[in-house]
């Protein structure tokens, strides 16, 4: 009896296996994107009809897409016909020649309508076309400011601190400022943003650090973060919080400021089914010491890896994704902020964009994090930045030591 069961299962399982395998196997265009790039079926069906190819979408979690791309590219094969390309990978993928230049493959007028496309240029060549816009903006809880008797959103970092202190002393929020301080990428990007808010930049044109001087934007930005932590304006638990977790705390109404707010998150924050602060959330231009608000873009794009089996269909897919009606459909289904300025404006005119005027105003001043493009050593540098800030926040390093550690990390990353 036992043996019969064993034999039966040993025989049927491979059969089952080959059956199930054949059901899902599909020829056509394979696309590798994170969950928020996974288009609803209605859209993929429409693409299949328009382009005459079936779309085989592969979804992977955020951290894992990169592992997957690198494994297959080092092994010498394309992971899919079209894949996610994050702004932070541009230097690496560009210098490795892993992606097909798209300059002569996508309509120039479309590219001109996408300001963040410049972030995906390496050596002048366009490696990928943005499908999701993202930049940082100040998001705040207006009800907290009203209760503390503050009329307008802060315009400078000092005003931000003063407002936070007023909110705290009025007992409205225990820790009014939301900033991630864990050893994760969100911590680094928040510091880069504050560096720009203090009028600074990370590197000069030769990639020499510009943040080591005590008067530099980067130094002041880190001192601002550590000072706010010591003054009890940032939750000490922030040393363990990723950016997304800080956002959960904001949604629960426990934060006044989401300092490094994601532009695309405004629609989430103002949705009562997902947020307890839906009626109180507002956005303002990033505070700045210079009078001119600055922010940087962290868009996500689609590119075609070299050696892709179906590069032509991938090119059609990228062009199709950048059509206004598809960007709008993706915004409505997935909340991806459209990369095309014309589409953003249309959405705002139709009243579909939360805090649209501020968003558009901030979108107009979006710059790349590093003017000459994301270098190949950026990921290594950025990990070291997050670790050093995390150590400073835990009290293991002083601000001076942390800045020195970051400068050393920049030198190490570049020397390799």
């Amino acid at each position, binding site marked *: 009896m036992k043996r019969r069961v064993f034999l039966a299962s040993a025989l049927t*399982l491979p059969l089952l296996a080959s059956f199930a395998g054949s059901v899902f196997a599909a020829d056509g265009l394979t696309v590798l994107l*994170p969950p*928020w790039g996974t288009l609803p079926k209605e859209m993929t069906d429409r693409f299949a009809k328009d382009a005459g190819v079936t779309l085989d979408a592969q979804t*992977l979690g955020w951290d894992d897409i990169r592992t*997957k791309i690198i494994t297959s590219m080092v092994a010498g094969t394309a*992971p899919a016909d079209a894949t996610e390309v994050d702004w932070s990978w541009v230097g690496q993928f560009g210098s490795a020649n892993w992606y097909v230049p798209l300059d002569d493959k996508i309509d120039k007028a479309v590219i001109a309508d996408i300001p963040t496309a410049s972030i995906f240029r390496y050596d002048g060549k366009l490696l990928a076309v943005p499908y999701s816009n993202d930049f940082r903006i100040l998001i705040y809880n207006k009800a907290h400011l009203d209760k503390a008797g503050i009329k307008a959103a802060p315009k400078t970092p000092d005003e931000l601190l003063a407002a936070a202190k007023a909110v705290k002393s009025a007992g409205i929020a225990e820790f009014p400022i939301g900033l991630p301080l864990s050893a994760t990428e969100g911590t680094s990007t928040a510091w880069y943003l504050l560096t720009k808010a203090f009028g600074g930049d990370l590197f000069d044109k030769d990639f020499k650090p510009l943040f080591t001087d005590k008067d530099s934007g980067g130094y002041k930005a880190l001192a601002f973060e550590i000072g706010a932590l010591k003054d009890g304006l940032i939750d000490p638990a922030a040393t363990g919080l990723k950016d*997304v977790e800080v956002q959960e705390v904001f949604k629960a109404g426990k934060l006044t400021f989401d300092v490094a707010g994601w532009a695309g998150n405004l629609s989430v924050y103002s949705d009562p089914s997902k947020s307890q602060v839906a009626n109180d959330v507002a956005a303002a231009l990033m505070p700045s010491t210079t009078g001119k608000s600055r922010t940087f873009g962290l868009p996500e794009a689609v590119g075609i890896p070299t050696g892709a089996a179906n590069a032509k269909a991938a090119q059609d897919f990228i062009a199709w994704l950048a059509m206004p009606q598809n960007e709008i459909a993706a915004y409505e289904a997935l909340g991806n902020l459209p990369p095309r300025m014309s589409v953003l404006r249309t959405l705002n005119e139709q009243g579909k964009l939360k805090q649209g005027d501020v968003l558009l105003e901030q979108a107009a001043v979006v710059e790349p994090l590093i003017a000459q493009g994301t270098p190949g050593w950026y990921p290594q540098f950025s990990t070291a930045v997050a670790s050093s800030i995390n150590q400073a926040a835990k009290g293991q390093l002083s601000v001076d030591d942390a800045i020195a550690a970051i400068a050393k990390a920049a030198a190490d990353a570049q020397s390799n």
Partner: protein
Amino acid sequence: MRSLISTLPGRIGTVLAVTLLVAWSLGPIYWSLVTSLTPPLNLLGAPSLWPQQITFEHYAKLFGATSMSQGNAVQSVWPQFSAALANSLITSILATIVTVAIAAFGAYAFVRLEFPGRDLLFVAVVATLAIPAYTVMIPLYRLMISLKLIDTYTGITLIYVSAFLPLALWLMRSVYQAMPISLEEAAWLDGAGRIYTLVHIVLPLSAPGLIASAILTFLNAWGQFMVPLVFSPTLATKPLTVLIPEFVTRNYIDFGLMNAAGILAIIPPVLLVLFLNRYLVSGLMAGATK
């Protein structure tokens, strides 16, 4: 031993130890269950051991007609979830059957048969336990591409077998070594062949070891993440362990959904362990009468 259990302090000690073991194993899982039943907005309140308000919305997101992704209504993820569940089961069961079969027969050769390089081969195979997945991943990927085994059950199963065979082999070898050779010798004297002896005398007596190897292999395969992440790009073979983290997105950590999916993911292996365990217990009974 028997008298110790029947004494009162011994019995109390046993009960205490069982309670401790159950609390240690189930506590975090219970907490995961509670989280999966708590409405999202209540998750940020003070924790309570029993959810004040029970919701099945996280499960509904997995089973319902519409699902949520990053908080947006999209098509039901149930077809994906069930396909991934089937993939997890198929790859884990195939890997278990093949691994235990190879180990059961191979270990016998390492214990009872003489052949050149025997000990060296055994040590080399067992030493591969120590190889980190990253070390072999990229060459293995190249190999699988050239064999056209990416995204196939055969490919995944082969990799699992190569990863879990050393442990099963080692375990089976130690089981055979502990077994008195006299039983086999009696059979040989009766004219039974090696294979007959192995299948009809040695294997039945090794039931606890075989079941233990099966449980180890199955659970190791069930928990795999790195291998399927790279070798199972689509739902044709993608298992639950790769599907579930996709619910954590950069924009939206859905603790409720993650925990609900995790709770569902532990049901099949637990059923299997319960099922196998019946054989483990009966194997013991057989051992008791020998």
